[in-house]
């Protein structure tokens, strides 16, 4: 397995000393994100997110399957992550690295365990038929902060996704093609987003948001926290590393909430823009099966 190239001693000293003076090598403020861009595909549920040089591609797909026997009323929701050698030479196919395991666990905790998607709404016929929603996440380019970018891409793709409309008459389940009936959005309860803080310095007192790959390699520890815009923490994880003062972590949580609100607004805007782009001639309102309930 090729090891990730480590930064040289000079680079290490330079970056850390600059941070101690409150400067980042790419000229950003300590709490500034890199430039974000989000593109939706022609299909529903395809999101392509770039954060600086990090690029994430998420695709949502749905199929009808039988539910798990122990949960007959729930649909199936899975998130699979794939870090291919395309993103960084240290990633290998079929052998999950630590980064990959931690990333998929974090997404699982943030999106799945916090019940962002109402899995009960995916049930079609209890114990027999349900929707299986699957998110495939591909990292196309890795320049740090995979967690925040991936979470944003997954949430964007899921909120953009439309599943085929269905109806049940007696025992027969009908799934309509997009031509017959306009697909319906998922029952989405809240949008959890992650913010990762990286800590630098002996005492871990320099706090940086959205670290790039170089900074990630040099940080002494990190803290990822997920919020939704209602101010609920969905997940928090500081998994080892240099110790951090408890008050610093609390302060980070407050900063994260502001950032998440900002990101949520940005995401809402992007989704509205996209629906406007699709809604040619204002036909959408007529085609939609949803009512005002």
């Amino acid at each position, binding site marked *: 397995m090729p*090891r990730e190239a*480590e930064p040289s001693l000079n680079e*290490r000293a330079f970056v850390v000393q600059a941070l101690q003076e409150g400067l980042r090598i790419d000229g950003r403020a300590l709490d500034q994100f890199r430039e974000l861009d989000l593109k939706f595909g022609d299909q529903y549920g395809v999101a392509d997110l770039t954060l600086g040089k990090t690029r994430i591609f998420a695709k949502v797909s749905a199929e009808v399957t039988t539910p798990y026997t122990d949960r007959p009323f729930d649909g199936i929701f899975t998130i699979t992550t794939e870090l291919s050698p395309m993103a960084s030479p240290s990633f290998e196919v079929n*052998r999950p690295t*630590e980064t990959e*395991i*931690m990333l*998929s*666990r974090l997404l*699982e*905790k943030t999106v799945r*365990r*916090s*019940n962002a998607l109402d899995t009960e709404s995916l049930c079609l016929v209890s114990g027999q038929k349900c929707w299986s929603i699957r998110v495939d996440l591909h990292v196309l380019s890795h320049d740090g902060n995979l967690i925040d970018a991936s979470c944003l891409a997954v949430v964007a793709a899921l909120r953009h996704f439309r599943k085929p409309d269905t109806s049940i008459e007696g025992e027969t389940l009908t799934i309509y093609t997009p031509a017959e009936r306009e697909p319906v959005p998922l029952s989405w309860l809240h949008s959890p987003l992650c913010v990762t803080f990286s800590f630098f310095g002996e005492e871990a007192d320099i706090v940086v948001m959205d670290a790039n790959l170089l900074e990630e390699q*040099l940080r*002494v*520890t990190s*803290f990822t926290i997920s*919020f939704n815009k209602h*101010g*609920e*923490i*969905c*997940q*928090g*994880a*500081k*998994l*080892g*590393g*240099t*110790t*951090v*003062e*408890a*008050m610093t*972590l*609390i302060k980070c*949580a*407050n900063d994260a*909430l502001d950032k998440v609100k900002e990101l949520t607004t940005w995401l809402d805007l992007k989704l509205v823009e996209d629906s406007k782009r699709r809604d040619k001639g204002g036909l959408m309102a007529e085609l939609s099966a949803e009512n005002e309930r």
Partner: protein
Amino acid sequence: MPLDTSSAYPLALLRVDGRRWNDLRRLHAAVRTQAAADGSAYLEMGNTKVMCTVTGPSEENKRRTAASTATGNTGGAGGGAGAGGAEVAVEIVVGGFSSVDRKRRGRGDKRIHELQTTLSKALAAALHTHLYPRSTIALSLHVLSQDGSLLAALLNASTLALVDAGIPMSDLPVACTAGLTSAASAADDPLVDLNAQEEQELPFLTLATLGDTDRVMVLVLETRVQAARLKDMVDLAADACKSVHKSLREVVRRRGEHMVEEGAVEKGASMAMDMDIDV
């Protein structure tokens, strides 16, 4: 969803297992339980029972690294396990008999993997790994019985085993959990050291601190909770960590006294001296 007994809670101020909100469960620990290992410990936090053995510091084990066990980076600037310092390799085995429903967990279980990585990274930062370049400190943890606060129990057991192995550390890493009685109401009380039943129902976090300071090594929160309540939970967990620290220090001290009685070390020998000063 409130606990079954929560209706009794405001009246008796007691929890399902009869504890008060700030009571820790019985913490019982024994050091040097396996003679063959370099360091070993057995720890019970209520009905959560964990065993830990330490091997090392020994020469870097190529096979182990290849077998993709969780490998911790060195604490400081060292980077890989090379010249920077020792690598802390953690392996957790959860016994199939450890919980109520017998479930086989495969090697690929991501939750276990996450625990391993967390422990390995946390311990690597607390230990003076730079004293052992190009070597491996291998911890093997066995979960014998699960009843909540698993990560906390695992970390506390590792601490004791590492003390037994005589690996220098800046202070004892200790961990504990704290939770809230209900997520919705504003008048919810915080709780410490949750058992499995409480963990399933209530929002909680696991916090690990270094010694009895307020410096946080590990913070894991997996349930939804209002942001404003984070501070209460962290404060309470940090306090609980202080009492755990006291208990663990007592265990180490008793072990030291025992060694002196046994004649394994002379009183006044460097090791006993250290214990008198540090512990």
